[in-house]
């Protein structure tokens, strides 16, 4: 009986060691993954004190590349300073029905294209770090450009999360308006 007790204690200590050792790694994975989704339409919802919405989304298809579309997403985030600080940063992605992930384009050409494609001709830059420095009384607007296959434009969801919100994230189902370029 005493021997069994020692084995049990050893196993418990082993499990505790593994748990303590992997604790930081598990937290790191959770801060990177979007596991718990608040699903809405483009009107958005509140996530940990910050309200996110898709203000505009347009898919642009050029005739000489009919298999792909540039998707312009204008995003709005609003909330008190403390909540924005707790978000830390902002990550925007597009996903389709198979959960494939498209990230925003970062090239200089993308900035110029956003200026050309945005309805007001303004590029508000990518959603990213710096949410906390914006004024409290206005919505923080950002512009993202994605390159996706035309076939998925009807099944897109805009995902938004912050380092401080993950594994929670907003998932906004959207239906882009289609614009054909000659």
């Amino acid at each position, binding site marked *: 009986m005493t021997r069994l007790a020692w084995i049990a204690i050893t196993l418990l200590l082993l499990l505790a060691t593994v748990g303590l050792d992997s604790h930081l790694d598990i937290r790191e994975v959770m801060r990177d993954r979007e596991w718990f989704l608040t699903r809405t339409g483009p009107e958005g919802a509140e996530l940990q004190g910050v309200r996110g919405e898709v203000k505009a989304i347009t898919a642009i298809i050029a005739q000489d590349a009919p298999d792909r579309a540039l998707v312009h997403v204008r995003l709005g985030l609003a909330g008190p300073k403390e909540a924005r600080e707790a978000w830390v940063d902002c990550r925007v992605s597009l996903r389709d029905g198979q*959960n494939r992930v*498209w*990230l925003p384009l970062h090239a200089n050409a993308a900035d110029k294209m956003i200026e050309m494609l945005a309805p007001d001709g303004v590029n508000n830059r990518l959603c990213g770090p710096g949410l906390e420095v914006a004024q409290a009384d206005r919505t923080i607007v950002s512009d993202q450009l994605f390159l996706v296959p035309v076939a998925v434009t009807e099944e897109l969801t805009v995902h938004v999360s912050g380092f401080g919100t993950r594994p929670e994230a907003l998932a906004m189902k959207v239906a882009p308006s289609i614009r054909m370029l000659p």
Partner: protein
Amino acid sequence: MSRGAALAAVLAGVVLLGGMMNTKPDYNSTFQPFVTNTNPGEEGMGRLFTARITEAHIASQIEFDHWGEQLRRDSAGVFLIVRLSASGTARSTRLTAIWLGASGRQYSVSSRVELPSSGIEYKWFQPGLFQRAVAVFELPEDEIKGGRLALMAAGDARLDSAVQIPLQTLGPKQDVTRIGP
């Protein structure tokens, strides 16, 4: 248990432990990417991407645009220019290309040839869309035959996937190759 048997058990333990310590895989073997070998001309599939070599040739000199300025580079070896077509599978992905030479040496993409609009190290590969890219290596000519291209997702490749693709054909050697945008 007799004293002799106990001593034998301890000695056996020491031998086993020594054996384990001496055959323990090193860090690189333990954490290296999982390699998928692809036949020449075929499409190789990694965890986050799929890619195929479309053309390869060697050149003594390379010409390219660098922010509007025409630059020409020459080399004590040769430039190996590998053109490929790649796509992301699960998520937007950047790729790292390495040439595994015939001698076993590894060559990174040449930093002397900056190609922001077509260089593989600058491109994002989107799921469902094939995009063309070029990888330029600077290396001794005898490292090409018997070598192969290794592709992996950029960043931390530990325990991730890597695709190795040998060349199917090598185009004729050119004195100067111009790489456009």
